């Protein structure tokens, strides 16, 4: 079966112009492929570039060299070279990203934040709100919070809002950057169940899981990400 997301020779370095043009290589020749129903855990020491790789996979960081191929709309697009509008379309339809932190949008209610990506995909508003509410309930976020903007929520609450927003649309490809970092055991178990359900539904998932329990429960295999200085 063909990969939903793969990279070919992906390299990434940062050039810090404000520090005299210092060049910091982070990724070199990464070849990764993730298939439908599969969950890959990125593995490597802190600072090895796991988050950088995730951000490249989402098109958030540009690639220095190589290709990032995403199966989108019946064809593969290269996120390294695609124009912004194609990447926006791919993010709307195909690839979701749950980061550790919620980028708060002022004054927008939690349930609307969760419903928004579904509405963008054409789900009727009422249905999107209903699904958002159900998912927030499942993640144990009390109803009284659904109508509030999450700016004042605790870290764990914000993370659950983020998870609901990422999982609700049912993207074929999901990127999870420490999705359970701020969660207690009960909520961790729920997230594990949600990841496994997404896999069963055919989603291809790439994640960073520092929590061994979560990693073992969801990951089919590990993908090594090595620090560039060491690899060189």
């Amino acid at each position, binding site marked *: 079966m063909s990969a939903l997301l793969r990279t070919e020779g992906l390299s990434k370095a940062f050039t810090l*112009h*404000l520090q005299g043009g210092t060049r910091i290589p982070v990724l070199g020749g990464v070849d990764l492929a993730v298939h439908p129903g599969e969950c890959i855990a990125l593995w490597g020491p802190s600072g090895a570039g796991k988050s950088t790789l995730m951000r490249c996979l989402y098109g958030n960081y*540009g690639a220095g060299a190589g290709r990032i191929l995403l199966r989108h709309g019946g064809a593969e697009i290269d996120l390294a070279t695609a124009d912004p509008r194609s990447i926006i379309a791919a993010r709307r339809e195909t690839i979701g990203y749950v980061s550790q932190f919620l980028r708060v949008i002022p004054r927008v209610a939690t349930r609307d934040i969760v419903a928004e990506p579904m509405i963008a995909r054409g789900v009727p508003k009422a249905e999107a709100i209903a699904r958002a509410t159900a998912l927030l309930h499942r993640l144990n976020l009390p109803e009284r919070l659904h109508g509030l903007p999450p700016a004042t929520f605790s870290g764990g609450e914000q993370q659950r809002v983020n998870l609901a927003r990422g999982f609700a649309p049912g993207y074929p490809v999901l990127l999870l950057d420490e999705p359970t970092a701020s969660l207690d055991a009960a909520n961790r178990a729920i997230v594990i169940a949600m990841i496994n359900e997404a896999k069963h539904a055919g989603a291809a998932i790439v994640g960073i899981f520092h929590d061994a329990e979560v990693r073992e429960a969801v990951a089919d295999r590990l993908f090594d990400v090595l620090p560039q200085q060491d690899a060189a």
Partner: protein
Amino acid sequence: MTGALLTAEGLDLHFGAIPALVDVAIDVAEGEVVAIVGESGSGKTTLLRVLSGQMAPDAGTVRWLGQDVHGMGEAARRRLMRTDWGFVHQNPRDGLRLNVSAGGNVGERLMAVGARHYGNIRAQALEWLAKVEVDATRIDDLPRTFSGGMQQRLQIARTLVTRPRLVFMDEPTGGLDVSVQARLLDLIRGLSRELGLSVLIVTHDIAAARLLADRILVMRRGRVVEQGLTDRVLDDPQHPYTQLLVSSVLAA
């Protein structure tokens, strides 16, 4: 780019020896929000004026649905400005009639395009005041009695009432308090999505650009030094100037 509403190529403009625009190209697609960022004097407001037909470039073309904006004649351009286009000024006093009531301000564009039913005009004015969160009881008040944030929201209502397809915004949150800015940005974001508006917004506020824009262009000394997907430009800036700009933003 297919599907682009507005396309500009090769724009050059000099004020004497000072380059205001140097070989600038830009396009805006249907439903897309594009931000132009840069410091004061970078040419971003000049670019907005050239793109909206208010100022002619020395060289280059601006096209709206394939039509040459600077070649179309003033009547056609004005018609565009009150139908398919809207312009939101930094200072609401430039975009409002201060001696005309809030309702009259919102209704003016409707009347300019031929609305002649008072009841309908008033109903639409009320509808738009609600959309921009101005209390209905203020409909007959003069804008000079409004706060800066309310004036700016009124200007947006007045601009959007005729459902333009593309709105130019010049530092719309410029002179406002931070708390008022957030409310306004959220309003612009909500309305542009709800109406499928294309927005071309000039701002020096990186956070506003991140919140609103699909794409971003970074300008410096009349040139576009970097452009692309908003979060990529801001999170992985390539050009030294963009890196400086992004690193200069105070984290809240």
